[in-house]
């Protein structure tokens, strides 16, 4: 054969990259900068963040600069920007700014100080709840997407059920029965490990084989759990759980987090299903890289974009959920101020003191809106189809 002898020449020159060097980060800002609303969202978000952090320092401690729980019964329901009546107040009751920036509530407490304190609650609830939900979502979605085609055997499922119920019983103080269940599990695991090598060569006896039947695939199991979780109206689920658990800010964060991971799971699973078929993942496998590293080092960075977007929007909805819970009286217990319970207090005085309703209401609106705008801006920027055009 004389293959293209004309074109096959010995040119072993060193290749240099084509395009000028522009990092993904620079490209990101270039695109993001063109989206005004997203920039606005980001700025409000940063402002909110700063307020919440300074608010934490200004309102906590034994002698806070802004005292959110100082009651001044003589100064009830003062409108915003009103001056305090210095004749009636003790020297240490005088507000720090020398006037009530956002007025006072029905107990004469400074609404500005209460809003500052509430900002920190909203921020932590938003971030911790979303952090929990994103972690669960990435874990479940990653497993469903990467190991989805593996089948769970009946004995695996029974074993997990036994383990979970055993641990549950021990936690609920039914120690003997729980321990019995756990011992049963342990016995089975020992048995399984001992017989593993034999069962490979010989078929197990027929009654034992029944336990090795493939029951459901990992993917089906996880996605059905997601479907079931999505069937519950999550706000009422949260209400029920919060009504049972002692009211505390940590319980609320955890409960919101545990009821909002389904979206992330779906996103991550979908990304992983398509990434798994890509050549670079096959190449990583062929190199002999472990599953764990492939999932977290090779695939996850390619799947974070939609997760980031849904997390940003998730923060907004977590803040909203917390406000709703506090409004209904299931939230953070008083006297700690949150935006929701300021709002809920204010509704009794909506005609006498509308600022008590409007200030927290509008703040929640602005913060939630800014998170949504920022999230949508992110989604646009991270969308590769949009990227192509630039």
């Amino acid at each position, binding site marked *: *054969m004389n293959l293209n002898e004309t*074109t096959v020449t010995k040119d072993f020159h060193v*290749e240099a990259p084509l395009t000028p060097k522009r990092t993904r980060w620079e490209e990101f800002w270039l695109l993001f900068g063109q989206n005004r609303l997203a920039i606005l969202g980001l700025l409000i978000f940063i402002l909110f963040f700063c307020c919440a952090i300074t608010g934490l320092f200004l309102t906590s401690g034994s002698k806070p600069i802004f005292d959110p729980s100082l009651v001044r019964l003589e100064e009830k329901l003062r409108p915003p920007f009103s001056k305090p009546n210095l004749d009636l107040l003790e020297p240490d009751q005088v507000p720090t700014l020398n006037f009530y920036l956002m007025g006072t509530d029905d107990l004469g407490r400074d609404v500005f100080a209460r809003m500052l304190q509430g900002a920190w609650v909203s921020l932590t609830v938003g971030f911790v709840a979303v952090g929990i939900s994103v972690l669960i979502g990435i874990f479940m979605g990653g497993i469903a997407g990467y190991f989805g085609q593996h089948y769970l055997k009946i004995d695996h499922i029974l074993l997990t059920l036994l383990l979970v119920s055993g641990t549950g019983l021990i936690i609920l103080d039914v120690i003997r029965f729980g321990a019995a269940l756990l011992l049963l599990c342990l016995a089975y695991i020992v048995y399984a490990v001992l017989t593993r090598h034999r069962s490979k060569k010989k078929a197990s006896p027929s009654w034992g084989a029944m336990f090795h039947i493939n029951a459901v695939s990992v993917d089906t199991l996880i996605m059905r759990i997601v479907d079931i979780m999505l069937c519950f109206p999550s706000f009422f689920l949260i209400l029920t759980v919060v009504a049972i658990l002692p009211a505390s800010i940590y319980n609320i964060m955890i409960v919101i987090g545990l009821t909002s991971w389904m979206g992330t799971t779906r996103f991550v699973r979908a990304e992983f299903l398509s990434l798994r078929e890509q*050549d670079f993942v096959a*190449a990583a496998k062929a190199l002999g890289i472990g599953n764990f590293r492939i999932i977290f080092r*090779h695939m996850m960075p390619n799947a974070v974009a939609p997760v980031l977007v849904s997390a940003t929007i998730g923060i907004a909805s977590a803040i909203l959920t917390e406000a709703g819970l506090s409004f209904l009286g299931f939230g953070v217990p008083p006297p700690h101020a949150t935006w929701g319970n300021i709002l809920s207090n204010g509704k009794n005085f909506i005609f006498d003191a509308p600022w008590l309703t409007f200030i927290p209401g509008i703040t929640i609106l602005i913060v939630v809106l800014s998170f949504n705008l920022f999230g949508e801006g992110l989604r646009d920027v991270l969308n590769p189809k949009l990227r192509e055009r630039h």
Partner: protein
Amino acid sequence: MKSKNKNNPIILCVKDLKKYFPIRRGFFQKISGWVNAVDGVSFEIERGKTMGLVGESGCGKTTVARLILKLLALDEGKIIYQGIDISGFSEKEMKPHRKEMQIVFQDPFGSLNPRMTVGQSVEEGLRILGLKSHGMRKARLEKLMEMVGMSPDSTDRYPHEFSGGQRQRIGIARALSVEPSLIICDEPISALDVSIQAQIINLLKDLQDQLGLSYLFISHDLNVVGYLCNTIAVMYMGQVMEYASAEDIFDNPHHPYTRSLLAAVPDSEPGKKMEITLPKEDVPDSPAALQGCKYRSMCSMEAPRCRKEQVLFEKIGEKHFVRCWKAMKK
């Protein structure tokens, strides 16, 4: 290259490989049929030599590559690497052997991780090789980039900054990073311009001379395969139809399909991409086609016997195998 203790002259031997994909339909995803993606593939690759696997698009070449690398579980057959039967190996047992065989992919755009710099991608292999210190990896990385003809300062750039040919070089560097003995090249040049194709082919040849690599070179282009390969396997619908040395395939073809391929090869026309086009209705997919010779609906020499009998892959000469009973009688 480090010396291999096992000096088996046959680096890879594949025997009657089979892989069927289920076709799932309906709400319950019931299996309604099977795609015989690979249905009887046998060949050998000698150490330091190149074997070409040719066949039209969709005949199962990539599936063969994935089966050999154990990226897919095979249904039947044997894969013997340097005398070790790896076909039954579990993922764990396979791990120490992974380094031995590497792959270069067809699509230069999907084969590199878009979120990792080129250096990071190649370094993953060096980590597997056991280079613990950062300095050692960096030195080796620069050496590898030089070997594939890339400038060392391209290592901290992302794949989207490179052209297709450059990415293919990076893909080759990644494959070389674990110091393999066998590289499977799955149509490494079919997505590239003709002038770049020649550069990549020369690079592969140079690397073979320097490192003593063996190649399994997959292509749909008989022209390129003839130039590069010592032995050739011609595949049709999941089966190897003819397997022989490159000279025998070109000068003494026995199978009607090989002959039709050769007839379709335009006499070395640089700049023009050769394609083997087949009329659409000629690709049979009815279950009846599963019995007898898979090529019979297109074969000019078809006889009733071709329909009834399973055609075997038989030896007709020194390292020459054909799957056609008429060709054997000759």
